[in-house]
């Protein structure tokens, strides 16, 4: 009987030890949440939305797993799977964050190139307009084109502002529009000058 009691006590001790080990993975959860927040702050949702969503979903799944384990009888409770899932969330967040950084860098380079091209086109249009017949006898078209150019020149600081805000996709769209319009102005000036020469 004494021996049986000993076994029983030992069994209870092991059970309590095991139950004591099955503690909610709070630190891992906090780390995973931070990793996801960092990914968001890095622009994950903007530059790689699909992958970022997957990471967010994986975190939600890990949270669910924790809830599942919370609902279990303490002897059978285990957070090992949740811990694994949270570790995966952290790994994936870091990986996607790295990809975001690369994508962002690429977008930034494209934006800077687009800004440069747009600025060059506006400058070319301005130089052509400066060469065009000036003053009282100048063509009405040239005067109108100067108005057009003013609108384009006003757009250039906006590009810089958008670069400052790291909104590279917006920079590319705007720069492309400015470049197109500036090139059109240049062509119109050339045509106008050609007409004057022809007279």
């Amino acid at each position, binding site marked *: 009987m004494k021996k049986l009691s000993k076994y029983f006590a030992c069994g209870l001790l092991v059970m309590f030890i095991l139950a004591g080990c099955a503690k909610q993975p709070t630190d891992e959860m906090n780390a995973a949440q931070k990793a996801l927040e960092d990914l968001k702050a890095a622009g994950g949702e903007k530059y790689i939305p*699909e992958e970022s969503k997957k990471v967010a979903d994986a975190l939600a799944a890990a949270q669910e797993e924790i809830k599942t384990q919370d609902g279990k009888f303490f002897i059978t409770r285990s957070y090992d799977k949740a811990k694994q899932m949270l570790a995966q969330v952290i790994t994936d967040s870091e990986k996607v964050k790295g990809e975001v950084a690369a994508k962002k860098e690429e977008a930034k380079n494209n934006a800077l190139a687009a800004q440069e091209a747009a600025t060059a086109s506006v400058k070319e249009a301005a130089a052509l307009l400066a060469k065009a017949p000036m003053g009282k*006898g100048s063509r009405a078209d040239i005067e109108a084109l100067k108005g057009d150019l003013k*609108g384009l020149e006003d757009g250039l600081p906006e590009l810089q502002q958008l670069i400052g805000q790291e909104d590279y996709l917006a920079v590319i769209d*705007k720069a*492309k529009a*400015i470049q197109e*319009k500036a090139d059109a102005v240049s062509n119109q000036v050339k045509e106008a000058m050609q007409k004057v020469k022809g007279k």
Partner: protein
Amino acid sequence: MASPTCSHRRNPKILVILGFLLSFILLGCTPPLPPPELKLVEQMNHDLWKAQAQIYASGEYKSYTTTFNKIRDDLIKQNARFVWFRNYEPISERLRAILKDGEDILTKVQERKETKKANAIRQRSELEQRMKRLDRLSLTINEGRLARKNLTKADLMIKEAGSFLDRGDYEGAGARLTRASSYIKASENILTPIFNRYTNKALREKWKRWAEEVVAESREKGIIVIIVKKMDKSLTVYEEGRPFKTFKIGIGRNGLADKLLAGDGATPEGRYRVVKKITGSRYHKALLLNYPNEEDRKEFLKLKRMGRIPQKSGMGGLIEIHGGGKEGMTYGCVSLENRHMDEVFELVTLGTPVAIVGTAF
């Protein structure tokens, strides 16, 4: 000898009990599978997110996700129950219902996106039409800087909206088109008042009267007179009351407006006379008019008193009909091609009446 017989009798009972126990345990070891609809609903949730349900059907999507989260919580509770007591059927039923809701939301999202897209395309087309009209107007009245600057900004916004449309971002496209619309409106606010003068009945009658008076003078005195029509950008020489020759002209940078003060780039409206013939003009040849006349002076002082023009402003002067080309943009003068100027110069004498009107007849 009795004991072996007795144990033989008890053994089958024990075996049956053990068998029952074992079967219960085994049953317990193979828990019922979670509802298969779960994966489908999860996929639907992803599809809705990808289709931007959070933008195009935000209310419905929120309610969908709330319901889904509740079902998931209940599923967790079911999973936590002892295997014998788990029942996924009610959850399956709810998942099937929410899947159906998801399909409906997805359809709604697609419809709303299509509507947004169609609206954005229609709005873009309307704005482009308005822009084209204003572009022509601004060129007609030589209103360069301000109106055209706004038109350019509108054009840029419309182009940007096009990129958003190509990417399927109809919300972004809509926002840019709204900005484009405000630039177009600003441009309209500049151009419309100038054009509205040309539909003003009293003004049109005044212009008509001036034109008729100079034509009558030409007829009665048998002299040459000139009528300049700003809207038509034409100069007609009348001989003995009949139109003799018409030439295309250029007018001021702000030519369609009436001249109010020096430097406004407007071409004056009124009845004038040629007061000087200049052969050595910077613009080939020139006919100087007696602008400002008495009526112009009175009007200028009246507007100044009313505060409609700055107190320090001057009236301006030296309004001429000169050469230099019909496409020339002047500070308010009337310009002709040099060869046409030669013809007019020959026909005109000092004192020749000139009526400059917005439009007439």
